[in-house]
């Protein structure tokens, strides 16, 4: 697949598709970061009334905005690096949980037992995203949860097709 490379790919392995959560799942944290950034404007008169030295106020505000940026970056990275990859041999799940932890799980397509997907709630129905669950026979991995993926029906179908192709 163009525009995508994965360093742990095996010989003869071809990436069929990769996907991550729907972009709409970013909206809550974007709004949170905007609100967090607006907070100093609300308490600005109070800050001025405190009569703190200006260098401290400027540094505190800079730190506040840098912190907001860092939190936003953390959330964005969480969305960006949570990638699900379907190859002609395996299913790979990259879990990026915070900036201190990541986990990569994979299971051969031959071990996939059943696949299901669900779409719940008005926003998921409206924007067409949902969760895809893949039960595998692998003891270490168990079940893959592909959360909030766009077009879950298509993802379900593509995985089923890849599994059928391998098992034939």
């Amino acid at each position, binding site marked *: 697949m163009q525009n*995508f490379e994965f*360093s742990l790919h095996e010989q003869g392995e071809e990436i069929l598709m990769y996907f991550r959560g729907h972009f709409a799942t970013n909206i809550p944290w974007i709004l949170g970061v905007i609100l967090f950034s607006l907070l100093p404007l609300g308490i600005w008169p109070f800050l001025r009334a405190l009569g703190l030295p200006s260098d401290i106020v400027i540094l505190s505000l800079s730190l506040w905005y*840098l912190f907001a*940026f*860092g939190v936003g970056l953390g959330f964005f990275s969480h969305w960006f*690096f949570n990638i699900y990859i379907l190859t002609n041999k395996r299913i790979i799940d*990259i879990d990026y949980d915070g900036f201190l932890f990541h986990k990569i799980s994979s299971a051969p397509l031959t071990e996939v037992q059943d696949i299901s997907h669900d779409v719940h709630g008005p926003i998921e129905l409206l924007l067409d995203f949902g969760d895809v669950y893949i039960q595998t026979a692998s003891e270490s991995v168990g079940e893959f949860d592909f959360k909030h993926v766009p077009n879950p029906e298509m993802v379900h179908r593509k995985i089923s097709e890849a599994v059928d192709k391998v098992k034939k």
Partner: protein
Amino acid sequence: MIFQIVGPFANLLIDFDWRLEEVFLIKIALFSFTLLYFFFAAISFRHVLILNKMVRARGVGFVKILAFLNLAGALLLLISSLGILI
């Protein structure tokens, strides 16, 4: 009701005389927080670099630049906070 409770405390803060010791304590607190933030930004940048090696997808370079800007900003503020501390 809430202003009756919070009001005296707010007035206490406003009327507070920020003497040298208190300002110094605030500066130390700011420096400590900036130092802590710098370490987290450095770890975050390193983590993004590791993932960047592992996954090469469209936009990975952009995330790397953002993580670098975060680290550079943290370093700048660390130097500034050290500057106002001494």
